[in-house]
């Protein structure tokens, strides 16, 4: 498993994971909860995420070559660290499952390519598994190849939709009060904090000049793309936004009133869908790493077995449990969100302190990685 990753790859990954997967069922769900102010709820969560990202980057700056596992084990004891990693693995698996269930629905309803869950997920798992076992460097390279196409398709979708967008549809602001907007932000927090994969790269990052600034800018690019599409979606669909199961398919197809372009939007949607696969692969790698820390696995064969176990969960769970309902009712609207908030926000915010304590405890750590500090 080659887990060394270049700075450019991390920057592209940040843009992809922040925007990827957020144009499926999420805009409709947020619109259902907060109406035309739902973009503000998303903006609030992005702002919170930005603070947490800053803390993670601070931790990267302080870190002296230790892995996430080593830092948490030093501070929270090995048992405490294993519990945290179990929650991380659970969080990542649930996020990917939700994303892939939405993607299957998108492909099925848009292109009328109807299939069952197993036939849909097996090829995806095969591709993801190959990349996961090969290491995060592989995922970074795939991102480099696909990024230009994905970015162009998002710009194409934005341009296709802009013509009919009436921005006055966002008014009146806070008609139902700011409390509802803030509560919605908390309720949909499960779908945010995508940057936490960086924690699993601790000790593997080759830092060069202005690393933190570049990653922060990449994050802001991802946020700008996501919020722009969400605002356009709300302006176009107004009161019907909440009934949309896939915002991207709706937005991209809205302006195609004529037959001149055929369904060029489908091309854009399918290219964009590859960003979901990249995001899922990255999160699957993160989940595998989290489980490898829990079970103390450090060899390729072990990773394959772990990934196979995760794969079995992926295939079976949606067949026996209503995963999407569980995500919405337990992890968005229910108490489940407080469990994930712990790994999404509490751990990232504590990381600079943990890194400092870990450095202090072991006097600089055992495994210094070769790194250039800018």
């Amino acid at each position: 498993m080659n887990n060394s990753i270049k700075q450019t790859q991390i920057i592209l990954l940040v843009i992809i994971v922040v925007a990827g997967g957020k144009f499926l069922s999420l805009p409709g769900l947020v619109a259902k909860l907060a109406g035309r102010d739902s973009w503000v709820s998303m903006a609030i969560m992005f702002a919170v995420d930005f603070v947490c990202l800053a803390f993670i980057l601070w931790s990267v700056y302080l870190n002296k070559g230790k892995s996430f596992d080593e830092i948490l084990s030093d501070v929270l004891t090995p048992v405490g660290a294993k519990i945290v990693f179990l929650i991380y693995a659970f969080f990542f698996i649930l996020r990917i499952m939700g994303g892939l269930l939405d993607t299957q629905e998108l492909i099925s309803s848009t292109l009328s390519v109807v299939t069952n869950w197993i036939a849909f997920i097996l090829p995806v798992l095969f591709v993801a598994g190959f990349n996961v076992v090969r290491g995060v460097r592989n995922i970074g390279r795939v991102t480099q190849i696909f990024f230009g196409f994905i970015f162009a398709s998002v710009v194409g979708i934005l341009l296709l939709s802009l013509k009919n967008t009436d921005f006055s549809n966002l008014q009146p602001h806070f008609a139902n009060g700011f409390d509802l907007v803030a509560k919605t932000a908390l309720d949909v927090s499960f779908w945010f904090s995508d940057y936490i994969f960086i924690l699993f790269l601790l000790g593997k990052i080759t830092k060069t000049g202005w690393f933190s600034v570049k990653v922060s800018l990449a994050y802001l690019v991802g946020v700008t793309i996501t919020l722009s599409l969400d605002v356009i979606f709300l302006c176009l669909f107004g009161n019907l936004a909440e009934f949309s199961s896939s915002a991207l398919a709706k937005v991209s197809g809205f302006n195609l009133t004529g037959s001149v372009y055929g369904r060029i939007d489908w091309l854009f949607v399918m290219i964009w869908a590859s960003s979901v696969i990249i995001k899922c692969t990255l999160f699957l790698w993160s989940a595998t790493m989290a489980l490898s820390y829990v079970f103390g696995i450090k060899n390729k064969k072990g990773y394959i077995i772990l990934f196979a176990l995760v794969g079995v969960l992926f295939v079976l769970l949606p067949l026996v449990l209503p995963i999407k309902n569980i995500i919405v009712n337990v992890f968005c609207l229910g108490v489940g969100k407080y469990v994930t908030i712990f790994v999404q926000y509490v751990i990232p915010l504590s990381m600079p302190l943990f890194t400092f304590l870990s450095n202090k405890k072991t006097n600089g750590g055992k495994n210094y990685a070769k790194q250039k500090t800018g």
Partner: protein
Amino acid sequence: MQNKRQAEPCAKKYAKIFLLVLVAFVVAWVASSYTKSELADRAIVLGIGIDMVDDNFVVTAEVISPNEGDEGGSSSATSKLLTGVGQTLPLAIQDVFQTSGKNPSLGQTGIVLLGESMNNQELKHILSYFIMSDAFKDGVTLATCEGSAKKIFESTSPVDSMVSFALQTIIQKSGKKTNSTSNVLHNFVERQTRHSKTSYLSKVAFVNDGNDKVNKNKDSQKKTGVYDCSKLSVFKDGYFVDVLDNDETRGFVMLTASKTYDNFVVDEAQSVLGTKDKVSVGIVSKKVSPDVSFDGDKILAKYNLDMRVRRMRTDVTGNVMDFLPQLPSLIDEHIKQSVKTQTEQLVAKAFKKSKNINCDFFGVADAMYKKYGKKWDDYQKQNPDYTRQIEFEIVVNVDD
């Protein structure tokens, strides 16, 4: 010992073969799990007509029919009509394809036409079938028609054999170059979920021009004619309310569609040749600035309409656009005053209609809600017939 060494590679070999067979089986199974849909099995729908007969939906679908080639060897495509009947719209559409044996492909649908018999139906709910579909374009042209939608699809235009294409061109594209306007599926439904709960649709009427010889296909029984789309039907809370006549439609379009063309005839105007005669002028650019406010218990809806007109030449073809250069003036005060008066009269007719039929098709309530939020909510609850409280005002400024 030697036997054991020989057995190990042999077991590995069998394991590899077993793995290969397993992978081949899985790949074959995955591939077979995707529903196959060959092009020949699909019916690509260009347009849909919806009628109501004896409490049943009757759907007429115009589908592409690829021809293998004519006598000259060239291939072409024509359209055919398929009909389905059902208690609900989804069932009627399903019936179309059950009876034809083709899979529906609604993603290319360009127009949905509602027959006159749909006037008594609650359209918001019925059309939500299309709205909820990701494949169906939300921007599909939606229109009503005089008589049955099926009859319209059974007719043909002298210039376009496919009715769906002909109607799309007339309603959607040419609509901007005439004094009417069009609407799309999503806007129609969404506007009725807003505070005004109103929306509008083009009304298509088939006018048989008696020129059936133009129809190239001698065997065809289709009537050839033109489609008149100069009127609008207005709806409230999902139900049909009334039809705006030509003048009311022009007045409404003048204030709601900023890029839509119109023209005027001015009597006794100075012609370019120095005589006094009838002169026709057309709009080349237009800007509408609506402003709504409370005026005591009343609602004041004020519209400022700034428009530039030019004498009609071959280049005044109905393209209304911004950023036009200044040209030497051929529009005198008499023409300006005449256009202003005519515009005010047209708009006044539309205002009057809105109040008379208690239908806020100008969307004053939507603008009030955007401006006042909850205050408007409370007002509307206390004054459900607020349309009669609206005092419309129009300020027209004509320039050249």
